Structure formats: C-alpha cells, structure tokens
C-alpha cells in the first residue's frame, strides 16, 4: 500500500473519525438517554445524565411481555434467515455458475424489489392478509420479510459464488460429482463466509423491520420487538427512558454479534474485492 505523507494522512484520519462519530450519533444519544433518571429525561440540558441510573433496564427486563416479544422476533427472524439462505444459495448457484441467459434480468429484478418502498405495499397487502385470515400470525411476517430479504441474500451469495474459481467446479465434476453434489460438497463449504454475511443481513433485516410488523400484528402473541418498543406502555406520557433501555437491550445482542463476526462478515461482503 502506498503511504501518504503526514498531512494528507491526518486529513483523512480526521474525515474518517468525523464520519464514525456522526453516524454513531443516534445510537450514542440513545445510550445516554437510557441511563438518565426520570426527572432529567425531557430536559435538555443537561446533555449527560447527572446521576446515571439502571432503573429503566430493570423495569424493562422484568416485563413479561417484553420477553414474549423477543421470542416472537427470534422465531420470525430465524425462519426468514433459514428460508432465504436455503432458497437463495441454490438460486445464486444457478445464477453464478450455470450460465443462464436471463441472469442479468433476475438480478435486476432482485435489485428493483429491494428498492421497493415497504410503506407502499402495506395497505393493499392489509386487505389480502385480512381476507386470508393470516393477521396476527408469525406466518405473514415470515412470508413478507422473506420477500424482501431474499433478493438481498441472492445478491450477496451470487457475487460470492462468482468468486469461486470455476475450475474447482469442473474438477469436482471430473472427480465424479453431479452438479448438486459439486454444489454441496465443494462450493457451499467454500462460500461459508458469504453465507454468514447473508444470514446476518437477512436476520437483522427481519429483526429490525417495523412497518409490516406494526400493521399485521395486533396482540402480544405475535408482536415483535420494534413494534413492542413503539407501543410501550403509557399512552399519554411517553416513557422515553424505558423505550431507550428496551431498544438497547433488544438490539445489543445483534450489534455484539455483528462486531464479533465482523472479520468474517467483512470477508463475506467484500468477497469480490479480496479474492479468497
């Protein structure tokens, strides 16, 4: 790598730090809020809590319905991840390796779908879901989230499979594998960083999704975490501290997971860039 001189280097470091601080802003602000005592919540200043407290976390974690929401979210997000990976990896294999002519079109449609605004789909889908009697079930969320997560996993996995040298597939065929055997025995193990990255993206999309979850769940039996946080108890006075604590408690496992597997996922998402 080329070394820049000191001044340029300092300039770039400043820029990168500024970006990180700016983008981390919302998350940090929320962490601060979750530690503020009730009385300081809606006052500004002070910006930092004068007496940091864990009261909000205690309140939230004692709440039965909060745990129920976490279970719902886990089930929905896991199902979405599983389906997206299973279907997406086979489809990505076909797109990357089998030389279909419509390849570009399928990927283009996948792109267009991930661009489609969810809000625009909510109201017409509401009618359909109601007519099918699927309101307030996990199934409707699993189906809808998969419809949006699948194109993303397809993208990630296709670029990953493309990076695997074609000669490996050919070698496996000559060594006695059928196309699917070659896929399962050689290509899939090699694509594991890509699978990890795709799984994380699908899981977190589903875990964080708010609009469909708000529209199609009506009771605690299927409500997921983001909706739960939005509808937190107390209709007239907004319990800002509890909300902040709940959302941090619910999202921190995901963030920790991301940072832990960061190296693996960075590998997965930049498969293209770093050649195996």
């Amino acid at each position: 790598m080329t070394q820049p001189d000191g001044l340029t280097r300092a300039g770039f470091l400043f820029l990168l730090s500024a970006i990180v601080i700016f983008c981390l802003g919302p998350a940090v602000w929320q962490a601060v809020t979750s530690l503020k005592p009730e009385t300081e919540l809606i006052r500004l200043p002070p910006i930092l809590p004068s007496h940091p407290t864990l009261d909000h976390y205690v309140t939230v974690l004692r709440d039965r319905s909060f745990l129920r929401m976490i279970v719902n979210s886990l089930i929905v997000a896991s199902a979405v991840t599983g389906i997206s990976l299973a279907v997406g990896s086979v489809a990505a294999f076909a797109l990357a390796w089998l030389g279909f002519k419509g390849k570009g079109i399928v990927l283009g449609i996948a792109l267009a779908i991930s661009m489609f605004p969810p809000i625009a789909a909510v109201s017409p889908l509401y009618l359909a879901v109601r007519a099918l009697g699927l309101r307030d079930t996990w199934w409707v969320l699993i189906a809808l989230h998969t419809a949006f997560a699948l194109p993303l996993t397809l993208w990630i996995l296709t670029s990953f499979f493309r990076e695997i040298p074609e000669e490996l597939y050919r070698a496996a065929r000559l060594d006695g594998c059928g196309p699917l055997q070659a896929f399962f025995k050689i290509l899939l193990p090699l694509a594991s960083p890509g699978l990890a990255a795709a799984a994380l993206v699908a899981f977190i999309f589903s875990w964080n999704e708010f609009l469909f979850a708000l529209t199609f769940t009506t009771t605690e039996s299927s409500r997921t975490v983001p909706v739960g946080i939005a509808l937190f108890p107390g209709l007239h006075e907004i319990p800002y501290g509890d909300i902040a604590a709940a959302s941090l408690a619910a999202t921190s496992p995901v963030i920790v997971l991301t940072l832990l597997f960061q190296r693996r996922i960075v590998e997965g998402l930049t498969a293209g860039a770093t050649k195996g």
Partner: protein
Amino acid sequence: MTEVRLEKLTKRFGAAEILKAVDLTVHSGEFFTVVGPSGCGKSTLLNLVAGLEAPTAGAIYFDDRPVHLLGPRERDVAMVFQSYALYPHMTVYDNLAFPLRMKKRSAAEIDRKVRDVAELLGLTPSLPRRPRELSGGQRQRVALGRAMVRQPRLFLLDEPLSNLDAQLRIEMRSELKKLHQALRATMIYVTHDQAEAMTLSDRIAVLHRGDLQQCGKPKEVYERPANLFVAGFIGHPPMNLLRGTFRLGPEAAVDLGAGTRFGLAGVLRDRLRDFPEGGELVLGLRPEHLRLRKSGKDLGRSVRLTLIEPMGSEVWLELGWGDHRLRAKAPAEFDGSVGQTFEFEIDESRVYFFNADRGDRIS
C-alpha cells in the same frame, strides 16, 4: 490405456467458431500434446474430451466407443488444471481421497491408495496439510496425485506447469515425463509453450484459430513444418521468415527487395522447379543453422550485426540483411561487435520455402 479419436470435432459459441472440424487420433499409451497460442481452441478441445462441454458437431471415441453424449462422470477421465483446482477446505489427504470417495470405495482401499500415491510423489509429510500451506511444486504434485489415484483411463493436463517458475518448470517437466514412462497411460497435454511440447511429447498437434495445422513427432514438426504458422511457432527463437519473389534468369534467386537476393544454386533451384517465375514465396532460415564468417567470397549474403544478446551458454545475434532482419545463434565464444559485417552460410538442406499466399511448405 485408451485410444482417443476425434472426428470432425466442432465447437461454436454463438458466431465464434472455436474448433473447426478437428480430426485427430491419440494412440493408446501415448503422451500427446496439443500446442498453440492462447485462443487457438486447445483448452476447449480438452474440455470437450473431458465432457465438461458439449460439441456443436462431430464425435469423440474412446477405444471406438462414442463418448461425446456421456457426462464427465461416465467418461472416467482425470484432469490436471492450470490453477491446480485443489479443494482449499480439504487437507491433502482428503483432496487425494475425494475421487475415490465419490466412487464409494471402502475406507481401507482409499487409505491404501492415497498413501501409495503420496509415497510415489513424495507427499507423505504433506498429507495433513491444506493446499494453501504448500509450495507451488507441492500443489502441482497434489493435483497430479488426485488425477492418478483412481487410475483413470485417460489423463488430461491443461498447462499444468505454467504457474511454476522457470527452474521448477524444468524439474517438473522431467518428473512428468518419467511419470508417464512409469504409468504408461494415455495423456493429452495442452500448452502454449512450444519448448514443453517438444521435450515432453511422443507426438504433438499444432492448433491455430481452431484449425489443426500439423500433427506428428516433435522432430518431424521441427524439421518439416507444414506451413508458415508452424514454422514461426515452433523453435526458440523462431525461424526467420523473409518474403520475396522467385526469379529465374541467368541466376535463379529469391528477390527479397532493396537489391537483396538469395541465390538458388543447383539443389535449391530443383526444389522450386514447379514454382512459377515471379511467384511470391517466403524463405525460411532457422537461427541455429546460420553460420557467420568474417570475410570471403561475396555470395550476396552480406549481413550487418545490429544486436548481440548474450544468453550465457550461447549468443543470439540480430542481423540486418537489406530491409530484412535475421536472427542467428552463435557459440558463447562469438567474437564480434555491433556494426561489423559478416557473410552467412547455410546448408542447402536446411533452407525452407513456403507459398506466400497459402502458407504451405514447398517441396
């Protein structure tokens, strides 16, 4: 020990014709090399024989049995790839065992065969390692071993040495040749390197733009190139090819333009007796056949030394002859300097003539 026969084998991708009705027979137990510049269709030919691609037209026979409709699994051929194509997530042992496992052999048999092959190739200490921990030469051996372990009826080798450095390539080349002598299996080898083709093969086929140019023993191809392409491709440095016009008159000669003439004495003139006066031809002189003398009777072969390239064991020379440029080889002791003038001599039997239009060799 399989004879391979290609009949009018043709492959098109869209409008591009990669292979044009190639007829070729590889004898049983032969080391056969297909050589040509990149894009000549040699890798496609290998893929067709392996069953990785389907021919557009034509047929492939193994021992007189048509195989071109079979999948790669049914053909029982093994291939060594340019990139080696080792499975990166498996150890050397598992790489070697993979083809046998796919054939559902017993664990004991697999273990025995893998260890035998590893022993033969000096890979035993590397068995528990992964491909990325190996050196280039070791990877090359693992790739060979994976091909050998299941005793296929046919070996296909796709430029297997091209990723090795110069010295290792010389080593592996002779190892490969000895391996063939030990296994006595039919091997089809593909390369763009004419030196590899010459040194390794029982017979070679020269391919250019999907067309078979010449097929024969290396010595034959070198000594009697069928056409201009082969003459310019085989040999290092390549043959000097000079375009000129055939003139009769008091002294028969090839007129090379700008007052330069290559005089045709008795035998040479006889060889061109069927060639029309005034016809365009190409004169071919191999660099190693040119002998330089400092003075002597002027035969019209007075050349000026323009460049000396010392190669250690010999010297390459570049010479100006009229408007033409000649390359010659000389012993390392060669004593001369740029700008000097020499006469060159060549044995009559070592002068080649080619038809300038069609490219084929005359007589």
